């Protein structure tokens, strides 16, 4: 008898055939076994190899700027730190301004607001996007507070707790801030304090090159300003910093991913506003936000995975459905609840209960219309069920909703968007 499968079944099957768990690197074990290979890299005469602290600091410093998804707010943090540390390479030869003055000035700062643009390389629509970042320095009675916004992504930090959420959902994920690579430099800065790292200038001094500074007049305002540029070859970065000669504070900063200060800056911090009074509630989550902790997130996923095993491996659809319903009822505010509803629909479909499948998919699209995860796939499966039950007009609508929901979220040439387009053409041609 001929057995049928679809593209998704095939892709899932390929993934399931991966042998064993994902490989886990064990550097220490490897280092012991290959000590000779590792020692061949050591160069006794190399200053940087013996100065571990400096070397590692600089590497971390580069990492924070470029690290995949975590680049978000860390990049903004880093721009300020870079501004304050690279400037320090000036040895005070310029009588009009020295870094010491800027450090002294910044120590008086209680709040800082930065806005500008950052290159956003993620998702279906990479490009240059605006960011906003608010920081309130820690005091004896109040912890470090921060709020960052890039696209729809919002981050609020109060002390060690960081909440991440998206403006089109009402769920925020709570995390331990100092453990987040992206943010640990802000925390580090807050610790060493008052809240700007003083040690970094010394550490980084030996790395940056081409320091140049000049005093010019702003062509728009006629106001005098200090322009400082330098490059940072190990990370192939270059910087432009503009400092107000009166206040000695950084007014704006740019960072490029090349040594020539060319092209669109990776970060263009257009405005630094100091000691602004922030509105009440700036560091608060909206009242109707549900905070999800990491434990809930892990537990819901573990339960969901039980359902997945029943569905995919054991093909026990009725039992899998029970588990998916538990996920939905226990964690209705989490993204996984919508995924669970979709899987319930699939279970009904496999059990040839098409009306029930349609009911559940409709429930999912009604209750989680903006959820960017599986909602496009849910619309797709709803369309399939309509097709199976001969409701072609409704199927076309569902496939079109699939395309809308997946726009800018998924690659249009992959499942389910490519499939939905094909079905629309096919149904309209009938």
């Amino acid at each position, binding site marked *: 008898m*001929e057995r049928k499968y679809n593209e998704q079944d095939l892709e899932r099957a390929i993934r399931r055939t991966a042998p064993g768990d994902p490989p886990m690197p064990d550097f220490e074990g490897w280092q012991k076994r290959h000590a000779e290979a590792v020692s061949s890299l050591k160069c006794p005469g190399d200053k940087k190899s013996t100065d571990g602290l400096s070397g590692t600091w600089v590497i971390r410093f580069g990492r924070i700027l470029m690290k995949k998804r975590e680049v978000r707010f860390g990049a903004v943090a880093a721009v300020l730190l870079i501004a304050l540390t690279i400037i320090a390479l000036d040895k005070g030869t310029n009588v009009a301004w020295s870094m010491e003055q800027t450090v002294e000035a910044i120590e008086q700062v209680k709040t800082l607001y930065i806005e500008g643009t950052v290159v956003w390389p993620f998702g279906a629509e990479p490009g240059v996007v605006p960011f906003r970042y608010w920081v309130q320095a820690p005091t004896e009675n109040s912890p470090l507070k921060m709020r960052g916004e890039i696209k729809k992504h919002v981050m609020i930090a109060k002390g060690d707790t960081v909440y991440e959420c998206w403006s089109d959902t009402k769920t925020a994920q709570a995390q331990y801030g100092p453990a987040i690579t992206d943010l640990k430099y802000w925390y580090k800065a807050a610790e060493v304090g008052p809240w700007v790292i003083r040690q970094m200038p010394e550490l980084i001094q030996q790395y940056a090159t081409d320091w140049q500074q000049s005093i010019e007049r702003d062509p728009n305002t006629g106001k005098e300003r200090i322009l400082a540029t330098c490059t940072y070859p190990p990370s192939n*970065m270059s910087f432009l910093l503009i400092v107000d000669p009166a206040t000695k504070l950084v007014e704006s900063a740019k960072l490029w991913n090349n040594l020539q200060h060319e092209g669109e800056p990776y970060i263009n911090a257009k405005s630094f506003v100091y000691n602004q009074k922030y509105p009440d509630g700036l560091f608060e989550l909206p009242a109707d936000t549900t905070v999800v902790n990491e434990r809930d997130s892990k537990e819901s996923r573990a339960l969901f995975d039980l359902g997945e095993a029943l569905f995919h491996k054991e093909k026990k659809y009725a039992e899998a459905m029970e588990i998916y319903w538990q996920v939905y009822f226990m964690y209705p505010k989490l993204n996984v609840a919508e995924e669970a509803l979709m899987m319930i629909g699939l279970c009904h479909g496999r059990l040839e209960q098409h009306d029930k499948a349609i009911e559940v998919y409709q429930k999912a699209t009604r209750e989680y219309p903006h959820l960017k995860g599986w909602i496009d796939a849910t619309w797709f499966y709803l369309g399939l069920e309509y097709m199976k039950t001969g409701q072609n007009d409704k199927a076309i609508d569902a496939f079109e909703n699939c395309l809308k929901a997946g726009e800018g979220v998924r690659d249009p040439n992959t499942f389910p968007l490519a499939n939905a387009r094909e079905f629309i053409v096919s149904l309209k041609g009938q």
Partner: protein
Amino acid sequence: MNTLGLREDNERAVVEAACRGDSEALAGLYERYYATMVWVAYSVLLDRGLAEDGAQQAFATACAKMRSLRRLDRFGPWLATICRNAAQDMARARRRDAALQKAAVVEEPAQGNSDGFDRAVKDAVDGLPSMYREVVVLHYYSGMSYSQIESVLNISGDRVKGRLARARRRIQDRLEKEGFRREQ
């Protein structure tokens, strides 16, 4: 972007530091590339244990040769080439020992559905020419995106997509022979 989504300029700094013997930088590279190298080796050896050995050997060889690396921003493709060569050497050595070969080819059976679909898929993947198998393993087993594969294999994104598409077609052809038909 490289394998883990880090930008090449940052990677260059890390590789440069590793060349100077900075152990944290070396650890960073090892952690960043280890899993990918295991899958590169696996696509040659079809044996997970041997693939881990191959990946570790590749890092040791890379350490010994790292000072000769000219394009620091091409560390990933360079390491992948070393790893592929190491795995091919191991495969050749293994072929010399028929018994070992037999033992190694008998990989643990794939867990999955009872109608033999997973087994058939696994056989079809294992039976792909190594050029196609490599991208399938990196994409599906390792979860790498097209652009990540592009950077680690140093081939264009279109070629990655083309190889994956051809690999899927070959798998489907094989599955059809086994009595599985793709729904349209």
